[in-house]
């Protein structure tokens, strides 16, 4: 047998691996992080190989997403990595049932039993290894430390698993609330597992042994444990081969057997030359500065907006303290009587803001001595409540007010403020001295600020240095304006194309700016922002971001020298009227201790995960609660809440026992939240025992997550799977969820459609939930246009259940059903009218929490209704008030029944002074991309605030609370 040497080169998103094989034996293997220097690293590794194991001729194959371009340019054969893995496993471990492989940016699952099936994550779920890296940075740990910590965990918090950005939005508040890092680390792993299950396994049963491959699974013990546990794997069914890291490279080496041999030197020279041949794909932007003069002018202009400093070691007199406990950083500002700065602090809160604030207070007290008296203190930001309770801070301030107070100091006529922090982007428009509208970013564009920092660090730069490089960029790369996950892969691509660090730095800056302008503000010209724009937030310290902003907008803006401290500075300014502070004294601070434990609230079915913070003075602070119950307060209950009314109504629809025609099960999801009364009456009249699934909770979703084929569908749709499971668990074997292309015609639009997901989700359930084949699942296409049509379309389906059901019987039932539906609507509207009357009588504000009928589901709205009532709002829904306003003439095609209600509800808000509209939008709702702009323009035409809350799996209300409180703050300021 002739000796043939084959080399497999696997270039993934972060590392390069080499495997040299002689026939079927591995003779050399090596891996190295390539830091995006793909070709150079490969060459280095080849030379190292040659030194250790001299090779004359060999056959080569390349694999891995980052190797694609190089293989093409160098004329080497390429094998797709999943394909390569399958080859290896087939040959070396033929008894494997499935492979789960997590890489730097990709997740893959291969099934071997019952037809080979290879799956890769879609673009949205991108980032697994990279995601874990990012999370470790967030926890201020190395990946190894995080893993070790995770093994000590005692509980799991629900963390959104749809994508990294969402997960981060969930984790950040947990950190701020003081949840333990061990628990968070394990929860992060569980999120990765859940993502793999919904994104890739998708309902397919895993038979036989499961093999785990790829870096993250190799290094993270905790992650493996979560997989074992979730997939219910016993030790002998989980395999972890010694070649886990090299599987792809080995597969490539095996694949190379068919490739032509070439001399080692030729291989090297081909790769060297490939640098020249490779196609440049990424497009470029103009440089930030055309000339040195331009740069000098820019610097000089921004030096003007500064705050005076006073030496704290010599000053004596009064002082005020402002604390801004943000999502990733904590800021402090101590100011003197002339508003100059005595002391400032700006740093990452390293996952434990309480400890940090305590240290800072000690430093400040030391510096103050007897000369300086702190007369007042104020705290704002995510961690507001926690810090306020811990240190007895005088006041808690809504962020928006804090920022406006500070911005006014620099530009009394300010009419637009943009704040880009680590996690959030906030924009406020000021009109007549009051905050007129507030725009906050959605989860999808969150984390931009911290992304640039994380990225700089990953490339081995400090952020300041990285920013400076950006200023010199000759051709910034165009990275688009999607979320950071997409940006991450765009950067990777540009690196492969040989973009320099300078160009990437400037490109990232431009991306963040585009996110702010086109996604959050939705502005296309400087006029829309106004004459006096103040930009702030830590991210604007980055001159490249600042410059990109001015360039993109085509105007100049003011960036205060304390851009990153504006919240703290504003808080301090705001509390200057205070004479005596309640803040912990130096003595009290010495004995201060803080402990946090977790618990589950048993107040209601929501079972909120609580974090209980205990302080040494006996004080307690509870967070994670969706309502006031956990705190022992129940006052929110007294205020009318139509979300609750509707839920109570639907829960009152009970089965009438002893139905002669047996039981029928209906999922309480999507269109059922509109038509439950109708179907309940109809089937009850026909003699069925009608069972609805219960209102959802997190467990409902988890129960069904294994059969979801399209991860990017909206949460209300995905939760459907759990409802079907629940009905089947109850032993119901006749299930019903109708196909409704058309909704009920309320005469308010050009047509009366449902959206495709509401209309046709039954088709997807039927095709993807195998269990449904064992029961009778009926989803007839019905028309609700008239009694006659409903009878005609429904009868064939009914007779499938029971042949004895006659047309006349159906007629009678349909008539009763429509009558009951009308009665429900009447009662709903009456209850709504009562709620409005209550508001008037008690001088309360009304919030139309406008969305779709299914948004009243407690798991879908995450208790936002309760949060609103706890803030003093009377809560109504869009369908409680829509009929009170005329049909709207909107600029878009108004052809969906549910959406037409939104436009009318907005008009109703415009006509009534004490009524505000807050729109709930489910992530992934394509139709709401159309309604949101329309509703905003209806409201803003009448100078009403528009507030949008995007909801998904995310359970943490931190951001929502800030949003609603900002709205309240702005309303109160307006008077």
């Amino acid at each position, binding site marked *: 047998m002739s000796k043939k040497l084959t080399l497999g080169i696997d270039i993934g998103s972060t590392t390069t691996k080499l495997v040299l094989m002689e026939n079927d034996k591995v003779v050399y293997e090596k891996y190295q992080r390539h830091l995006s220097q793909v070709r150079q690293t490969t060459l280095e590794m080849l030379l190292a190989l040659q030194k250790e194991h001299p090779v004359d001729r060999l056959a080569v194959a390349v694999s891995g997403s980052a190797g694609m371009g190089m293989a093409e340019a160098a004329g080497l054969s*390429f094998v797709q990595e999943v*394909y390569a893995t399958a080859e290896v496993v087939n040959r070396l471990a033929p008894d494997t049932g499935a492979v789960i492989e997590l890489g730097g940016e990709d997740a893959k699952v291969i099934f071997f039993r019952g037809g080979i099936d290879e799956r*890769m994550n879609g673009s*949205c779920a991108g980032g697994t290894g990279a995601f874990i890296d990012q999370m470790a940075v967030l926890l201020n740990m190395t990946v190894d430390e995080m893993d070790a910590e995770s093994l000590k965990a005692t509980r799991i918090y629900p963390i959104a698993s749809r994508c990294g950005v969402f997960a981060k939005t969930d984790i950040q508040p947990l950190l701020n609330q003081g949840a333990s890092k061990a628990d968070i680390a394990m929860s992060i792993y569980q999120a990765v597992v859940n993502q793999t299950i919904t994104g890739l396994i998708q309902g397919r049963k895993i038979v036989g042994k499961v093999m785990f491959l790829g870096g993250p699974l190799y290094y993270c013990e905790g992650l493996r444990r979560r997989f074992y546990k979730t997939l219910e794997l016993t030790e002998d069914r989980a395999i972890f081969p010694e070649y886990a890291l090299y599987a792809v490279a080995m597969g490539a080496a095996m694949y190379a057997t068919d490739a032509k041999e070439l001399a080692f030197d030729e291989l090297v020279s081909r790769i060297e030359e490939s640098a020249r041949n490779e196609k440049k794909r990424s497009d470029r932007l103009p440089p930030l500065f055309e000339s040195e003069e331009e740069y000098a002018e820019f610097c000089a202009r921004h030096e003007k907006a500064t705050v005076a400093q006073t030496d704290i070691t010599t000053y004596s007199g009064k002082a005020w303290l402002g604390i801004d406990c943000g999502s990733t950083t904590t800021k402090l500002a101590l100011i003197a009587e002339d508003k100059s700065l005595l002391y400032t602090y700006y740093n990452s809160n390293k996952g434990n803001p309480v400890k940090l604030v305590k240290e800072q207070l000690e430093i400040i007290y030391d510096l103050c001595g007897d000369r300086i008296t702190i007369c007042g203190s104020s705290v704002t930001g995510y961690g507001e409540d926690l810090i306020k309770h811990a240190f007895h801070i005088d006041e808690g301030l809504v962020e928006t007010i804090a920022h406006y107070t500070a911005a006014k100091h620099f530009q009394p006529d300010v009419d637009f403020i943009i704040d880009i922090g680590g996690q959030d982007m906030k924009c406020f428009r000021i009109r007549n001295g009051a905050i007129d509208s507030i725009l906050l970013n959605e989860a999808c564009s969150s984390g931009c600020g911290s992304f640039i920092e994380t990225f700089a660090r990953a490339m081995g730069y400090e952020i300041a240095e990285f920013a400076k490089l950006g200023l010199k960029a000759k051709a910034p790369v165009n990275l688009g304006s999607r979320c950071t996950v997409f940006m991450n892969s765009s950067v990777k691509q540009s690196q492969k194309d040989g973009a320099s660090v300078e160009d990437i730095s400037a490109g990232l800056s431009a991306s963040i700016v585009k996110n702010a302008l*086109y996604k959050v503000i939705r502005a296309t010209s400087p006029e829309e922002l106004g004459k006096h724009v103040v930009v702030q937030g830590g991210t604007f310290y980055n001159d490249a971001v600042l410059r990109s902003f001015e360039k993109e907008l085509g105007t100049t803006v003011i960036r205060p020298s304390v851009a990153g401290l504006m919240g703290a500075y504003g808080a301090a300014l705001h509390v200057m009227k205070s004479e005596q502070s309640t803040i912990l004294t130096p003595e009290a601070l010495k004995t201060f201790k803080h402990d946090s434990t977790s618990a589950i609230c048993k107040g209601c079915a929501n079972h909120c995960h609580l974090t209980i913070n205990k302080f040494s003075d006996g004080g307690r602070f509870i967070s994670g609660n969706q309502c006031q119950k956990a705190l022992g307060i129940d006052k929110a209950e007294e205020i009318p809440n139509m979300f609750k009314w509707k839920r109570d109504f639907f829960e009152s629809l009970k089965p009438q026992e002893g139905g002669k025609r047996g039981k029928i099960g209906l999922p309480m999801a999507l269109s059922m939240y509109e038509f439950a009364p109708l179907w309940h009456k109809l089937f009850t009249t026909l003699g069925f025992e009608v069972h609805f699934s219960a209102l959802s909770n997190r467990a409902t979703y988890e129960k069904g997550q294994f059969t979801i084929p399209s991860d990017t*569908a909206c949460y209300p749709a995905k939760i459907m799977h759990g409802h079907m499971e629940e009905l089947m668990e109850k032993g119901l074997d006749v299930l019903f969820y109708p*196909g409704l292309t058309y909704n009920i015609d309320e005469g308010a639009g050009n047509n009366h459609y449902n959206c*495709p997901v509401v209309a046709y989700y039954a088709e997807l359930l039927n095709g993807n939930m195998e269990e449904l084949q064992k029961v009778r699942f009926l989803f007839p296409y019905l028309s609700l246009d008239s009694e006659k049509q409903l009878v*005609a379309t429904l009868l064939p389906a009914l007779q499938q259940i029971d042949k004895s059901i006659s047309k006349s019987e159906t007629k009678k039932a349909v008539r009763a059903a429509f009558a009951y539906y009308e009665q429900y609507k009447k009662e709903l509207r009456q209850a709504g009218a009562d709620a409005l009357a209550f508001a008037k009588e008690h001088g309360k504000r009304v919030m139309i929490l406008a969305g779709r009928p299914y948004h009243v589901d407690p798991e879908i709205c995450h208790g936002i209704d309760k949060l609103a009532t706890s803030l003093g709002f009377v809560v109504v829904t869009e369908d409680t008030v829509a009929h009170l306003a005329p049909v709207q003439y909107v600029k878009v095609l108004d052809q969906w029944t549910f959406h037409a209600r939104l436009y009318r509800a907005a008009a109703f808000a415009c006509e009534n002074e004490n009524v505000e509209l807050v729109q709930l939008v489910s992530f992934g709702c394509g139709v709401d991309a159309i309604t949101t702009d329309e509703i905003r323009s209806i409201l803003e035409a009448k100078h009403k605030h528009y507030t949008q809350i995007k909801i998904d799996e995310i359970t943490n209300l931190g951001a929502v609370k800030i949003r609603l409180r900002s709205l309240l703050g702005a309303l109160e300021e307006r008077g």
Partner: protein
Amino acid sequence: MQDRYFIPFTEEMKKEYTILIPNMLPIHFKLIMSILSTDGFKTELLETSNAQIPEIGLKYTHNDTCYPAVLVIGQFLEALQSGRYDPHKVALIMFQTGGGCRASNYISLIRKALAKAGFDYVPVISFSLHGIEKHPGFKLSVKLLHGMMYAILYADLLMSLNNQVRPYEINKGESEKLCAQWTKKLGHELGTQRISYKKIKKNYAEIVKSFAAIPIKKEDRVKVGVVGEIFVKYSPLANNDLERFLISEGAEVVVPGLYDFCLFFVYNYMMEPKLYRKKVYLYPLWKILYKFLCNKKEDLSRAIRAHSNFDTATPFDHVAHMAEDLIHHAVKMGEGWLLTAEMVELAESGCGNIVCTQPFGCLPNHICGKGMMKPIKELKPDVNIVAIDYDAGASRVNQENRLKLMLANAKKLKAEQKN
């Protein structure tokens, strides 16, 4: 209810305005333009494709809107802002499908974007068989529709033959060149001569013969079908030149024609009265039209069979019933049941390797595309489908890597079948 930004396209405008057409299917649209010219319209196909187009689109429309809307808006505004046209002498046209998909809102989104960019005076014509809006200067006569039917049939024929010849031609570029020649010739005929079916059938034969005459080298290529959301499926601008990529990777591409998509609408109109027991008397009338249109497609297939060995498309009525057990014919939003049926049809006709394309977050495709892959796989275990999402931020490397996986499996499957 009329759109607030509605600007009618008047009789006077018809005389002096140029109507700009977004680029989706060059051959089809060029032939349709010829038909429009017979009625006195001046039209121009936008063949621009640069990185600025999605950028402009994102700037002027909601970023969560579907990618096709972003691209069309970007392409229109790029043209209006470029200075190549007098914006006061230009109208835009958009093909609108109507129905419960948000795509029916493209027209409104274009108008909003135009207003935002300061072009609110530019009329936007919605080209729709639903007749959603009335433009005095743009009326669809039976004569025009009749001509367009042949334009689409011709174009589908050229597209299909070109796809079958191009990967194998010995002289590179010959097939594309022939395609362009025919497009020009047929456009001229459709634009100047009376429609004669005899002449058209003769052309069919000539076209088939001319493609059959191109010298080819029969290589062993895997066949890959492309289905999905209509715009992303066809437009190279939207799908990062998918066809070219697949061919360069050693595939032969099979793309179902536009005519089937039109038949899909007629079929749904036909079935609606039956489905909802509403105006049932309309059913037989629609059925006559449906049969008539199906026969036109069959005439074309007959010509192919008579003069060549090229593959012909499956009769539409047959396609329509292929996925009946998987998805109901009531699912009509977006590409609806046709998308599922096309995948089954491809698998059945020996082309089980399929790329299912959609804009990121496409609502109907959750159901008809991704939602049907499991049942299709159960029906046809050998099928090899990859779903690719397209949008302004999606990375091309990611897309190509997934396509390569599909291709690797396709080649392996082919080798196995051979043995």
